[in-house]
């Protein structure tokens, strides 16, 4: 059985930004998202294990849990991609 995805260690907010408030921390947001997805996945994992072990588990509950885990992962991944795109467009700014 695969271990649940554990949250990545937070990407530290860039220290080079001077002045103004400390940025909210995109890395922290992604880490939080991954943590909550890991929780959902752990639940789904437990249900799948129970079903495979022949315990009395509703198939629809397993499917709901796995669908939620899948959707949660998609959402976090999309947000990561959007954030990365924003970063890339700033990095590629011509000066």
């Amino acid at each position, binding site marked *: 059985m695969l271990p649940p995805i554990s949250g990545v260690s937070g990407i530290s907010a860039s220290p080079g930004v001077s002045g103004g408030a400390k940025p909210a921390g995109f890395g922290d947001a992604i880490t939080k998202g991954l943590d909550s997805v890991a929780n959902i996945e752990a639940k789904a994992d437990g249900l799948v294990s129970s079903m495979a072990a022949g315990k009395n588990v*509703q198939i*629809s*509950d397993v*499917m*709901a849990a796995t*669908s*939620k885990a899948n*959707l949660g992962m*998609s*959402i976090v991944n*999309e*947000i990561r*991609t*959007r954030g990365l*795109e924003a970063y890339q467009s700033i990095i590629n700014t011509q000066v």
Partner: protein
Amino acid sequence: MTVHGPFSSIDISNTGLGYNKYWLDTIAHNIANVNTQTTPGQAPFRARIVEAMPLDTNTSLGGGIAVSDVVDQADDPAMMFDPGNPLADGTGYVQGPVVDLAEQMGNLILASRSYQANMTVFKEARDALQVTTTLGRG
């Protein structure tokens, strides 16, 4: 159960799937016992009837459905004259089950169609959420 969240439609249709699965199981039990005879005077086999209960009716969204109770059908059992039957009483009668096969077949269609309807809601909710995640793509 609080179901306000991104996956509430999945959770609610899941309760519908669970309820209709329970209903199907009950119908299977009733149809399996459609020939269960007993000696008059003993408790006859009685068809189980599932009663539904809506969940979270005091919230704006609602929370789906649950089984509130399972009751026995309350009709009189049919008496059949069958003196050769080992279950027959002194007068030669055996007691039939309290279950109407035609009614159970009708319920079977209802239960399986309800299950499919909830499955459709589940799939549509999942697909809608999946497509929503792609909204941000440029």
